């Protein structure tokens, strides 16, 4: 059993970390070039989907349980909207990131703001992609209630 699809297993293990690394690159380089949270989230999820394709969804679900994904989805959205709410609490309009670094001369607040927001986006997108993959790949006719 261990020898089945040896090449696929080895290649997957080699690729997993670079894919995650690339996801983070797209995530954090999104400020300056093409990329951003949505694309990064999809790439991040791709690493796990690849894992699921080769080791089976059950193994992937052990590595990344559905409960964690549900929490990540919510927390990602909270990061996004929370940033907006934070700028309101700091006395500016919704999503006015300048409030995050009011004394900056080069709008550092804008950088911080978009960085946090995009991180939230990436988190939610990655978790949602994986959830969709789990639900499509599970063979049950219905999504089990425990998966919610």
């Amino acid at each position, binding site marked *: 059993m261990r020898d089945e699809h040896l090449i696929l297993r080895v290649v997957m293990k080699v690729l997993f970390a670079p894919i995650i690394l690339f996801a983070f690159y797209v995530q954090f380089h999104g400020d300056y070039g093409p990329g951003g949270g949505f694309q990064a989230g999809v790439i991040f999820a791709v690493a796990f989907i690849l894992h699921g394709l080769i080791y089976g969804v059950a193994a992937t679900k052990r590595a990344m349980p559905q409960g964690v994904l549900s929490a990540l989805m*919510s927390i990602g*959205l*909270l990061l996004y909207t929370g940033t907006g709410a934070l700028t309101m609490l700091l006395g500016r*309009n*919704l*999503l006015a990131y300048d409030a995050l670094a009011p004394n900056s001369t080069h709008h550092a607040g804008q950088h911080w703001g978009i960085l946090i927001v995009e991180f939230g986006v990436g988190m939610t997108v990655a978790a949602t992609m994986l959830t969709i993959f789990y639900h499509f790949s599970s063979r049950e006719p219905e999504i089990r209630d425990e998966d919610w």
Partner: protein
Amino acid sequence: MTIADQLPVLPIILPLVLAPFAILLRNGRAAHVFAVVVCGAAFAFCAMLLARVTAEGVISYALGDWAPPIGIEYRVDLANALVMLLVSGVATLAAAFSYASIRTEIDDRQLPLFYAAFMICMTGLLGVTVTGDAFNVFVFLEISSLSTYALVALGARVDRRALTAAFNYLVMGTLGATFFVIGLGLIYQATGTLNMADIRAQLSAGPPGAMPNSMVEAAFAFILVGMGLKAAAFPMHLWMPNAYAYAPSAVSAFIAAASTKVAVYVLIRFTFTIFGSDFDFIDAMLTYVLTPIALAGMFFASIVAVFQEDVKRMLAYSSVGQIGYMLLGISFGTEAGLQASLIHIFNHGLMKSALFMAVACVMLRLGVHTCSGFHGLTKRMPFTAAAFIFSGLSLVGVPLTVGFVSKWYLLQAAFDAGRPWAGFLIVASSLIAVVYVGRVIELILLRDPPSEGLLANDVDGNPVREAPLSMLIPMWVLVGANIYFGLRTDLTAEIAGRAAAALMGGAQ
């Protein structure tokens, strides 16, 4: 900066921030209380917003401090403040109403997700209404539509047909959204801006005769079809009866009152504030497209409603007919017509929501929403029966109810616009409403409750009792509103009148 300055954004951002917490709560009862509190807070903010707009005039809010037209602007005037008040008010009551009903219809573990989707749906509908940015309308429209698809599909545990209904709604809703966004793309191409006020300025600027060109006219056609689909205007209503009938009862009570009304509001906003009736093609559209659609909806949908065995489907078809009244008001192209339309948007939300709540009470006790469940309802569930009768009479347009106010202003507008025949058709189609509402009221009042068979007892086999107070109170608040706003017409009529004047003023 105080809370007053943040008022336009608070009803949107509050439920959006807090909806994920409902999922993290992982407990149905807690999520329910949480959702009621959040929706209630949004309602309070909307009420404050309306009060402030009434006193001070239009409020503009620049998101992220990016000044319009570059940034996204939230622009609150009387028209959208009124619609926001309706949406958040009905959402609060429906959330409070929902618990006893929804826990019998979906799995307990889905309750937190249900309330999260419910709050996000309300956020989307409020966002569509508040925003002054045309593309932002599309974004919020998708937020509300996607959550509505999920909410409708939740009805699958009771009736599997909810799945196909939700899927149909998804296909048609996506088509509508696509048409809408194509229209926006064309406008953007023609004017180079997405801010509503700025689009208006760009369309009016330039040498005479330059605008509207055929691209702008095509844009409007796409937007009209897209919003017509979302509003379930006849003949684009086919997704709607099933979606309303097989959605969980509490969901029907909310979306029937809120979602199509918001689409009609967007149509009004685009027709009068962005394009403006001073364009010839808008006038032609109102006369030759909207009027026939409105009249056909009023009659066709009402007649179909008469023959429905399922009360929820009947109410859904009746909604298509009522959308016809709203479109008819718009199609006059006059201030009075617009006022009548806005009044009816508000009033119809109140009556249809109350009616769907009454059906939800019957559904809770008897497990059916067909006519057979309504036999002799006065003897089994007197308060539910009375609520259905009162709001049904309101739907027909009996004096002392909001329905009468709507019809009255609509008739006045028809005669003022020099279309007395439209007035007669309004009365004629109201008579059809008498038939389909009267048919159910006859069952409620005059028949005896079945003494044997499945419907002799409630779903647990016990004698049928009245619905719990947690459902009766929100339902009767709405019935009360039906009568209160029927007597105190100055509130809705005055605000709608001023809103209509402002909307039409945008055209000059």
